[in-house]
């Protein structure tokens, strides 16, 4: 009983981390960028939800606007900030994205508001469903369903479409893909669009649990997703998903063992476990496959 509840919590929290980590991993595997500005894509999706709700649009349209808006912003971010530095090192790109993230945050604080905006959830979201004796809240249930749909959809895209297969190939050996005549910029733009789309979905789930949007809302979940991507193996897509659920399990699973005294240290304890894991497996649980040329 209690176990089922924990499982639901792990899946709904881990799912958000998994979607975000997957977005980070797709971009990293193709352009070598660890995108710290990923959280700002979530924030953009959040503001789009607030904005389109205020126009009285129906919920499915609102969610679509949020996801597409985040995807478009990701592609724009690449065009403006990252494309000019395509050949730069991983560190340089990472620091650039740190700068982009900082600028975006300041713009949100000034352009929108430094304070949070409440998001009114539809009635049905606050209910619960009863399955043969135990209850599941609608919010975690939607989270799990949406996460599953997104992961399955992405899997089909990466396996069955030409562009998807090209992207998987690019994540292992980018130079080879361009030698085969595929357009490098199309592959890269698609990877950013997918990462933005995933950030948009994650934002919807995150907001449905928190009920508000603020300029810094993306920071914490993306930091966690970053850690999840590292647990799984930076640049490995399956690893990112696995890492997301592992981190969710660590956070939710550690709750029963924490006392009032130790609870505030949870993040520190979880991270310590991650660092120890890095010592044993520096490339993560499911290391990325890379084409290595001597």
């Amino acid at each position, binding site marked *: 009983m209690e176990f089922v509840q924990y499982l639901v919590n792990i899946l709904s929290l881990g799912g958000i981390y998994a979607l975000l980590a997957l977005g980070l991993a797709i971009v990293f595997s193709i352009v070598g960028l660890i995108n710290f500005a990923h959280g700002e894509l979530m924030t953009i999706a959040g503001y789009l939800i607030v904005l389109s709700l205020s126009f009285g649009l129906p919920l499915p349209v609102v969610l679509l606007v949020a996801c597409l808006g985040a995807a478009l912003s990701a592609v724009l971010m690449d065009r403006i900030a990252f494309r000019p530095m395509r050949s730069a090192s991983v560190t340089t790109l990472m*620091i650039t994205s740190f*700068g982009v993230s900082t600028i975006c*945050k300041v713009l949100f604080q000034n352009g929108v508001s430094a304070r949070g905006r409440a998001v009114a959830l539809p009635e049905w979201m606050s209910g619960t469903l009863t399955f043969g004796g135990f209850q599941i809240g609608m919010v975690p249930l939607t989270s799990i369903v949406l996460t599953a749909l997104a992961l399955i959809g992405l899997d089909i895209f990466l396996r069955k479409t030409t562009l998807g297969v090209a992207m998987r190939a690019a994540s292992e050996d980018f130079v080879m893909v361009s030698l085969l005549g595929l357009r490098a910029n199309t592959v890269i733009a698609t990877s950013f669009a997918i990462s933005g789309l995933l950030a948009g979905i994650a934002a919807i789930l995150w907001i449905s649990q928190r009920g508000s949007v603020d300029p810094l809302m993306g920071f914490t979940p993306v930091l966690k997703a970053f850690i999840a991507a*590292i647990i799984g193996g930076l640049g490995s897509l399956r690893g990112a998903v696995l890492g997301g659920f592992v981190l969710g399990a660590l956070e939710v699973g550690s709750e029963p063992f924490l006392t009032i005294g130790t609870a505030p*240290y949870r993040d*520190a304890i979880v991270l310590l476990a991650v660092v120890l894991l*890095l010592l044993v497996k520096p490339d993560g649980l499911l290391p990325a496959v890379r084409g290595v040329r001597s």
Partner: protein
Amino acid sequence: MVNSRIKAVTMDSLALAVILVAVGILAGVLFGANGTRIATSMSIVVTACVGLQVFSGNTGIVSFGPAAFMGVGAYTAGILTMSPVVQRTALPHLPAWMAGYGLSVWSSLVVAALAGLILAGVSGLVIRRLSGSAASIATLALQIIVYTVLVATKDITRGSQTFYGVPRNTTLVVALCVAALSIVVARTFRDTRTGRAVRATREDEVAAAAVGVDVRQARLKAWLLSGTILSIAGALLAQFLGAFGPKDFYFESCFLLISMLIVGGLGSVSGALVGVIVITAVTELLRALEGGGNFLGYSVPALYGLPLVGASLAMILVLFFRPTGLVGGRELELAKAWDPSKGRASKPVPGTQDVQAPKGAHALEANQLSRHFGGVRAVDGVSFKAEAGLITGLIGPNGAGKSTLINLLTGQLRPSAGHVALGSDLIENRQPHLIARAGLARTFQNLRVFADMTVRENVLVAAEACAADTALAVWRTNDALARFGLETLGDRLAGSLPYGQRRLVEIARALATGPRFLLLDEPAAGMNPAETKELMGRLAALRKDTGVGILVVEHDLHLIMSLSDTIVVIDRGQRIAVGTADAVRTDPAVISAYLGSKRMGEKKAQLAPGSVAQVIGASAS
């Protein structure tokens, strides 16, 4: 010679310190109290940035943890300097052993430094074992862990509430003194034995280990010094602000420090100083505009966070247009401008050859050496002995397993089975840097010079890693440079030399370890015929003078046939022939390996052995 280098470094660090003090005093004089405040804050940031540079600049690993050390330093100093009366109201639950010290600013800095050293020591156990982005990520984890702990230990830090009541004892004089001292320490560290070793690990970890540098230890030392300086900066900041919270030591300040270092140039202490001064100027200017209002007739809207945007933009622009920073990879070397001994620095000391006798040569022996990658037997039971005082050639077609074999001999790979003996020592399970120190030095096929270090530093770092005695290290450096005709190029960056000379730098570097046996992986690759001939002469002379044994892997079969006393031939991971050049040249197994077994029958019937060798030479070179 050594003294003149030390003198140059000292002069240079003093020059940097003087610049800082001049800027600080100027700001105070020109802008009054506000200028003094900015100059004080800038000096604290200089201390922090220099502390970050000690680790990130020298190791090349960007640390996301500088603010963590500053936070620990700040809270340590805050608790210790607070007057006992204030402490009872601000921190009622403070453990008794921490309470009631009321230390002065200087003694608080000492304790804060100690706290930083302890944190660096504990975290360093992990950091020293990681490299590249894994290490960066570990520093990020450290940052979050320290922040979480600062927020969670409410009794000591007041949690996320403001920590107040710290006496504001960081005056401009105190901050300037500490910053100037940090500059001198960091600038000097760069040119110490450890500093050079760390920079070699930044350039190429594998090559650094191969010339005897203990990569982990070098990295740990830089981390310890960096953490100590950063904690001191934090302690200064605490006593400058008087009140602060954990958020002051989180990502924002970490990011600001990194951006300053990048704007100035990660690779040098001068870069850290320039970066802080430039970014401080930019942010202070923008801070004036932040609130909006009228400037030069234009009305500017309020934009809070403008200084942060300015710092970010400055960093992105510098990364784009000048990735090595405003200063670039090298130190400014201001002192050189008025140093009369300029240009004389790299003259070798002649006539000291007999001061230090060579260590004595050893034979190198492989016994049933094997290495499997999955099902591939890259090296499969190879045995041979390369005698001291002789030149042994190792040849084989592409994919024969030559590179794997060499990596097994020098510890870059561990063998699946078999032994490697240097003299009477078994070395197959030792780490690469210990193998180098035991006397087996090597060069690499794909050129691994330390590109952003000078030629002299390249060679010196190897000599120092393998000789405890500084005089011996300097003698070996001069000797190695002279043997390969590099003595006049000592001050050039190794990466700026033409290809052939870079190869020579690598050989000289290997020689500077004082090897008992030398292993050269394709030393003539990419050299023109004249350079190759010169190299052959130098190698023959080296063998004659020192009696050191040399194993040469080469694709140029003409070179190897004329240079080698013995030749070992391997193919598909196995030794297929061994003997003199003439014996190997006519060996049917060798001919078959190079020309393919099907054609062998015809060729053998048609061609005399001598002309087959011609074909081998032509096809392989």
